[in-house]
């Protein structure tokens, strides 16, 4: 079973490696951010699999923290894309 988990984790790593290409290529900043988002989720999945594959059980806590914080960079990015950097990307009204 451990080998199965580790194998899947390795495959996910491969897929992360592929997603890096999107971060590299862009073309827009949003594309790069999306690549990072997918890699973040992939990383969380790898952590869960590592925990299952006889790794430290607390790796799930790491996954929890990553899952919690993964969104932050994207939110910060979306925020900075507004005109003043302070508004809401969903609306053009400014404070």
């Amino acid at each position: 079973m451990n080998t199965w988990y580790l194998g899947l984790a390795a495959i996910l790593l491969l897929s992360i490696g592929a997603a890096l290409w999107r971060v590299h290529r862009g073309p827009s900043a949003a594309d790069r951010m999306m690549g990072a988002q997918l890699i973040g989720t992939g990383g969380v999945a790898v952590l869960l699999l590592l925990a299952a594959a006889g790794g430290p059980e607390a790796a799930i806590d790491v996954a929890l923290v990553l899952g919690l914080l993964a969104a932050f960079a994207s939110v910060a990015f979306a925020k900075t894309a507004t005109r003043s950097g302070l508004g809401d990307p969903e609306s053009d009204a400014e404070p």
Partner: protein
Amino acid sequence: MSVLDLITILFTGAGTVFFIAGTAGLLRFPDTHSRLHALTKADHLGLGLIAVGLAVQVASPLLALKLLLVWGLAVLAAATTSQLIARVALPPHLERQKENAGQ
């Protein structure tokens, strides 16, 4: 091999497939918005299937809860960020339209 193991193998395997599909979409789809579409599949389904597949194996319910919480967080984060990223990625003329429609 027990039935549980079989379920785990099935779910985790399927989850991984969704991830690969999502990655392929992210790489191959022509424009930002369709790529975003592919991304959310991987986030929602890929991680979800893996989490469920592992949750049936764990001994303590607390651990299972944690696994599901990880998934829940990922879904929540993905939903929010894809919405926001989509908005950022809107070309200017579409943005104007959407604003008019919204008001």
